[in-house]
């Protein structure tokens, strides 16, 4: 997969696949391309790794008990 525009097209397809935006036919074509082309497969895995890394490493601070109590006092 040396053509840059093909690479960009494939990159777009990977993004859309991981966002659940591809129809069944496009999904099948993408997965077939991954099976047949190492570069495609590598790109797919890199994008997936990137998404997982971001999702798993983002800071998720907890709500303080004071805030929880305040909300419950006002709303419940």
């Amino acid at each position: 997969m040396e053509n840059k525009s093909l690479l960009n097209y494939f990159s777009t397809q990977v993004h859309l696949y991981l966002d659940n935006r591809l129809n069944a036919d496009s999904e099948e074509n993408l997965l077939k391309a991954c099976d047949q082309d190492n570069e495609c497969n590598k790109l797919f895995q890199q994008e997936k790794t990137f998404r997982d890394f971001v999702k798993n490493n983002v800071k998720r601070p907890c709500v303080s008990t004071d805030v929880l109590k305040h909300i419950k006092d006002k709303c419940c």
Partner: protein
Amino acid sequence: MPHIDALKTFAFHLSYNESYADDLVQETYMKAYRFIDKYDAGTNAKAWLFKILKNAYINDYRKKSKRPTQVDYEEIVTYHNSESAAGPAYMDLRQELFDNMMGDEVTIAINSLPIDFRTVILLCDIEGFTYEEISKIVDVPIGTVRSRLFRARNMLKEKLKSYAQKRGYHDYRGKKKGGQKEEE
């Protein structure tokens, strides 16, 4: 309390301030409680709460700043001018890059993105909202959600790549055989 942790994460990354994020979460539940009659039963409650929080943050932001900073404005204008551009440029990242990171840099990198781009990343990649839900939460067309996401992810990759390079990781692809990482 439904979705409170997710709301806190969203609020924290919008404001990058824990105490203010708590205030935003509290304000969100107060507003939801006050305007519960506006909520259509059976529709997505999480998306509704996120929209309330996003609006509360934007309203506060507008009150506090008379105008957006020059850098953000330029970024958004440039972005909107190229909104209809077909797809993302391919942005490569080596898997090894992630091995050198602790996690804090993800938070720092996300928080350094312009607000419009940060918002879609948080809603899609962190909270798992669909394009349709994001479109309703941020009041932009689905095509705009899609292009913002592509752009935001590439910006995030650039930032993480720069961070890795500062930490001693170098990408030698295309320059030299091997392309192994090198510690400084």
